[in-house]
């Protein structure tokens, strides 16, 4: 493979992996704090992307303006979804809680896809921003992708700093590690869980807008992203942002090279097969992450 093509594919993979990592952050935080595996997580990305594309088509606004338009309602939706449907399940036994969570989030996935498909059409869409090209030697990159990459880096660092230094960010980590310990420090666990669920939803909405800037979106593509995000947090560790970022980048790069060297149709298989292999090879490593 010529070097310039190698770099091009690598950069594509990094971009894709960065977006995957953003999706995984939300899933990981929510699972860590609230022990909810939100099967509709990736579908939130899909509908965010679809609606962002609609807004762009109708208004032609700058994507930076569209992001808050999408993120604020999705954040609010996430909060209400958790408060109204998921939080009441906590009083059940473990198995019944799992069943309730799975049914509610999967039912929501089906509803969101179908309603979005009905309202906005089932076809693939994107946000076709026009962008200058950056040329370094034989490598050609649109500036828009560089901005997206920069955005992902900034978001990741901001999230990391927030969790490390902000009082509420620390409270979220505390609830993840020891809910009782957090309660006796004065943290309101129920509020922390609902806000984290909302924040996770908002984060995936940002990822949705960024995704639609580069790749086509449709209302039904969400679940495959949830699968990727799950693989990423299994590899990177629950609540571990750095781990999720590395795992996300590796997955994105692996998919980009699979698509280029073999065939794009095999790229989505990597995450599931990787997941199953990891489960066979490192059961103990996994078990130690499952501190439930």
């Amino acid at each position: 493979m010529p070097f310039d093509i190698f770099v091009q594919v690598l950069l594509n993979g990094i971009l894709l992996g960065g977006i995957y990592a953003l999706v995984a952050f939300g899933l990981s935080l929510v699972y860590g704090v609230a022990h909810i595996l939100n099967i509709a997580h990736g579908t939130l990305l899909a509908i965010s992307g679809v609606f962002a594309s609609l807004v762009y088509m109708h208004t032609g606004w700058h994507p930076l303006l569209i992001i808050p338009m999408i993120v604020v309602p999705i954040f609010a939706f996430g909060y209400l979804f958790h408060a109204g449907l998921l939080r009441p399940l906590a009083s059940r036994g473990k198995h019944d809680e799992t069943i309730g969570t799975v049914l509610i989030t999967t039912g929501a996935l089906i509803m969101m896809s179908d309603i979005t498909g009905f309202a906005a059409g089932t076809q693939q869409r994107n946000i076709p921003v026009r962008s200058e090209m950056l040329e370094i030697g034989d490598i050609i990159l649109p500036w828009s992708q560089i901005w997206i990459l920069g955005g992902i880096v900034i978001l990741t660092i901001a999230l990391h700093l927030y969790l490390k230094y902000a009082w509420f960010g620390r409270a979220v980590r505390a609830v993840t590690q020891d809910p009782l310990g957090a309660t006796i420090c004065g943290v309101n666990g129920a509020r922390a869980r609902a806000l984290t669920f909302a924040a996770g939803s908002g984060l995936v909405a940002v990822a949705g807008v960024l995704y639609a800037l580069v790749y086509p979106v449709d209302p039904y593509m969400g679940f495959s992203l949830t699968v990727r995000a799950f693989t990423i947090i299994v590899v990177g560790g629950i609540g571990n942002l750095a781990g999720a970022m590395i795992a996300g980048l590796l997955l994105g790069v692996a998919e980009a090279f699979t698509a280029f060297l073999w065939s794009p149709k095999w790229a989505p298989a990597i995450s599931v097969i990787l997941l199953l292999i990891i489960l066979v090879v490192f059961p103990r490593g996994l078990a130690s992450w499952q501190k439930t």
Partner: protein
Amino acid sequence: MSRAAPLAISVAAALLVASVPAFAGSYISAIVFAMMISFVMAQSWDWVNGQMGYLNLGHYAFYGIGAYAFAILLTRGVPLVPCFAAGIFFGALAALIVSFPLFRLKGDYFAFATLAVVPLCELLANNFDGLTRGSDGITLPPNYVLIPAFYMVLTLAILTLCVTLWLMRSRFGYALRAIRNDEQVAEVAGIRLFPFKAATLVLSASFAGLAGAIQAWQFSYIAPNTMFNLGVALVPIAGALLGGSGLLLGPLVGMVLFASIEQALLTKMTHLRDAVIGLVIVLIGRFLPGGILRAKWIANHPVLSWLSRESHFEVKGEGGPAGERLPLSPQPVNAEKVVLACEGATMAFGGNVAVNNVSLTIRQGEIVGLVGPNGSGKTTLFNLVSGIYRPKTGRILIDGKDISQFRADEISHLGIGRTYQIPRPFLELTVRENIAIGRTFGASKVSLEEAMRTAGVFAAYVGLGGLLDRKAELLSLQQKKALELARALAAEPKLLLVDEVASGLSTVEIATFVKHIRDIRDHYGITIIWVEHIFSALQQVVDRLIVLDSGAVIADAPLHEAMRNEKVLSTYLGHASAEAK
């Protein structure tokens, strides 16, 4: 309701369904056909969830694999019967393969990983287009087979119900329910987990595979997006949960209801059908944790209550020796024989060393008290001996055999029984079933029938004689502890580990318990290690005291010697005791 009535109703219902193609048109027959397929899917799924407690969201993958195996072979000219056999075989094979990674997971992780299998299958069906014709799908030669397919799936549905009934009453089924209630306790009770789990998944997948094959035959067209559709995949699951997972008739009732809702929607709506189905699924998840059949108004309804009844093993005639005598064969006591030896056993959690270089020897027929302050490592030591943990260093020998690397069920079969500090009976099962599970899967290895029949003797022995058919979750703390003792004894152990039984008991109750401990040793030759805080209880019966502090043995001596030991008094009892004397 008499015993014959359910059978009569079932036969009548089966005949009624069987007569559908004769008097109703093909439209109605096709609907009933589809309902039966869904029922087979829902019911076979519920063996894994309702009986074993594993939420498998990938059940539809086996259905699709069965359909593809059938269609691929049929289009290549293979006769019909081997094609159906292939549907079963490949469904089962796929289940066996995924068992290995999937059963390393539990709870929501398991659920999610199984769900990921469905899109993987869709992808494979799309990509191996040489075999599957990719997204075009496979069209079978046009054949009007609704009638034979109808009777075939009716037979399969009846078979599915029979298997469910068998599961609810067989030894195999009780292993699954023990796993569902408490997997770790089930393993310590002697149930080897993986074969049971894998066998159940394979069984359920073979039914799904056949259902898929029949569906493909009848519909004569299959494609990746219809066979592995996520929305479709959840319908039988939601149906089973709507009715009541784990109940004999739950999946049937739930699936009929769900399919009726679906039919009503199909005829009335042109758009947003999936959204309404999704909404129904959300509402089931939010409001019906136990399903409709567990609702109070049904359980208390004079006519409908039989629907929600749980099916249990039926005991034909109580049995076993009369009086206080337990049906255990007394073991010859050889006071020289070492039953248990720990050689430098160490166990650490992170930086916290819970058991530190412990060496001790227990001889046959001894009653040994194991004491020490909270956190001194007593329960961790029990967990090492019963195989819940493996020692980081050092060895543990039972009858001279190193068991450091044994699984808990293997250790149980060597004759180690135990109770738990916080009692862990199988909560959803009755007193009788708890004891019978201990007996049929433990070292004694008697049949389930025999174990069920003699369970009453063990229950009576620990004072639960009148509560045989009560569910364990309804017992008081002390009764649960008594039940655990009965469950452990029923397994016919050589060495019994008793973890804190006396706290919360009255003086009279303690005296009874002490008598039992002595009796167990004197009459049946069972060696006992007893962890206890209530000193007066130990004082009455133990030969020897082992004292742990911070994970290490600080004293190992006959009772009265140990109680005069200055170190023991200061670490465990405090000087106050010496002064109080």
